[in-house]
């Protein structure tokens, strides 16, 4: 039984990290209807900046973490400014391809640094001993990761629900012209959406980097891994991202816990999310929490 509970706990932990990684995608999509395929690269950049600040510059890791979030905040904002602003109103394929191209450009830039090909790991700053409760254990790194995830997600939910700026970001996604007419600066909202996405990406990068070590390939592949999560959650719902993230985490852990090694199956954890996603999309084409178009005819 403790095996089962361990899988559940691991699933939730992994799932909430997925949720955090997915958050950035949701934020961007929510306001500007852009699916960002360069998110993985921003995640990686955030993690490497933190590493650079702690190890090379020598900042305390907590400050480095914050600083890296701030840096990616502005980085993502300028990315939006330079590349995506011109594409407002272009067809979806152009926008998808621009983010793919962008990802490729960032790849190239990261390959210019040693981070592109070599492995690093964050200095340890948390207790190494695990927290164990009734045969189920969780590491401090994971616990802190989950806490940060929920803090950030809670913060963003509040921001979108209660603050005027947050509401206006949602308003832009609803009706750009209407938003402009009440004085919302649409470009600024887009910039802000990217910036907050960058911020959350940095957080995700640091947490993932703490768990897997810093390897560019592993880190940036998260940009793709979280797509099923985002789609399952319904693209523009933060709550959806959390629920879908945890569902996907559980599916993965259960798949690798119960399917792998039996009946000649292996690596099912990697593919199950996509299969489940396809099945769910057939029944709920807008994901679990996606917005259905409200149409009054």
């Amino acid at each position, binding site marked *: 039984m403790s095996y089962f509970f361990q899988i559940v706990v691991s699933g939730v932990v992994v799932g909430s990290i997925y949720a955090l990684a997915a958050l950035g995608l949701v934020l961007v999509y929510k306001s500007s209807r852009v699916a960002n395929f360069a998110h993985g690269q921003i995640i990686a950049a955030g993690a490497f900046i933190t590493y650079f600040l702690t190890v090379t510059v020598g900042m305390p890791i907590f400050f480095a973490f914050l600083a890296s979030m701030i840096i990616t905040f502005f980085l993502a904002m300028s990315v939006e400014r330079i590349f995506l602003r011109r594409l407002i109103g272009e067809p979806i394929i152009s926008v998808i391809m621009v983010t793919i191209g962008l990802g490729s450009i960032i790849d190239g830039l990261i390959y210019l640094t040693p981070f592109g090909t070599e492995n690093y790991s964050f200095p340890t700053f948390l207790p190494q001993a695990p927290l164990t409760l009734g045969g189920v254990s969780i590491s401090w790194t994971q616990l802190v990761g989950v806490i940060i995830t929920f803090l950030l997600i809670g913060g963003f939910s509040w921001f979108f629900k209660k603050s005027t*700026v947050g509401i206006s970001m949602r*308003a832009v996604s609803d009706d750009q*012209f*209407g938003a402009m007419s*009440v*004085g*919302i600066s649409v470009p*600024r909202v887009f910039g802000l959406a990217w910036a907050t996405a960058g911020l959350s990406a940095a957080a995700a990068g640091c947490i993932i980097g703490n768990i897997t070590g810093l390897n560019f390939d592993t880190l940036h592949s998260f940009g793709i891994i979280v797509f099923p999560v985002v789609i399952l959650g319904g693209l523009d719902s933060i709550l959806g991202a959390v629920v879908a993230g945890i569902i996907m985490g559980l599916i993965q852990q259960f798949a690798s816990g119960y399917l792998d090694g039996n009946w000649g199956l292996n690596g099912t954890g990697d593919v199950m999310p996509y299969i489940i996603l396809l099945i769910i999309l057939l029944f709920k084409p807008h994901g679990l929490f996606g917005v259905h178009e409200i149409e*009054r005819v």
Partner: protein
Amino acid sequence: MENNLLEVNNIEVVYNDIIQVLRGVSLSVPEGSIVALLGTNGAGKTTTLRAISGLLKPENGAIKEGYIKFDGTDTTKMLGTDVVKLGSVMVPEGRRVFKHLTVNENILVGSITRKDGSRKIREDNEMMYKHFPRLSKVTNRMAGYSSGGEQQMIAIARALMAAPKMLMLDEPSLGLAPLLVKEIFDNIKHINKELDTTIFVVEQNAKVALAVSDYAYIMESGKIVLEGSSEELQDNPDVKEFYMGITQGGGRKSFKDVKSYKRRKRWM
């Protein structure tokens, strides 16, 4: 009319560098009044409004000639956000409420450009429900599910949240039942009195618009063809015929009336 809040002087607007929509439009809106801009479909009313509120750019339009002055500031080259900050807010055609936001969120969004503290905003927010009691029952419903009339009220309330000096309405009567149209225009008049907000309304429904407004302009093919105080215009036979559907004899207008084409020409 010594104290004009809005002054539009001879503007020309061109879309996509090819299509000229406005051919020298001039009008002025005195402070505290209600001014109406009337005209048929495609006359250029909406374009005029967009030019005033700085929203031409998203539609690929540009002001080529003339200037617009609001409250003493030249706003010809300004963008929407800055115009709103100056205190001129538009309620766009077709309401454009945010469908997936609740009614209250819709109203709150309007205050985005304000810098005078959250307490004041909260007060204004409550005020809106006094102006539009209908909305107070549905504050937490998704705006997309509201009826057309409610949506129009939401849109007006949203615009008022910016505490504007001037409120511009683009065809508030569009697609609404006559009773609702009346309610909306009563609201408009009320707002003008209570909040001392100048109102500039674009309408096709000349009868209602002339009833509430102080002064009115009539547009056709990108030009102002007639202007005057609302009482005057109400009595103008041409206006009566073309915009209110009343013939000289007082009966309903008939399609058999072939003279209309000639008469229309005389204005230009």
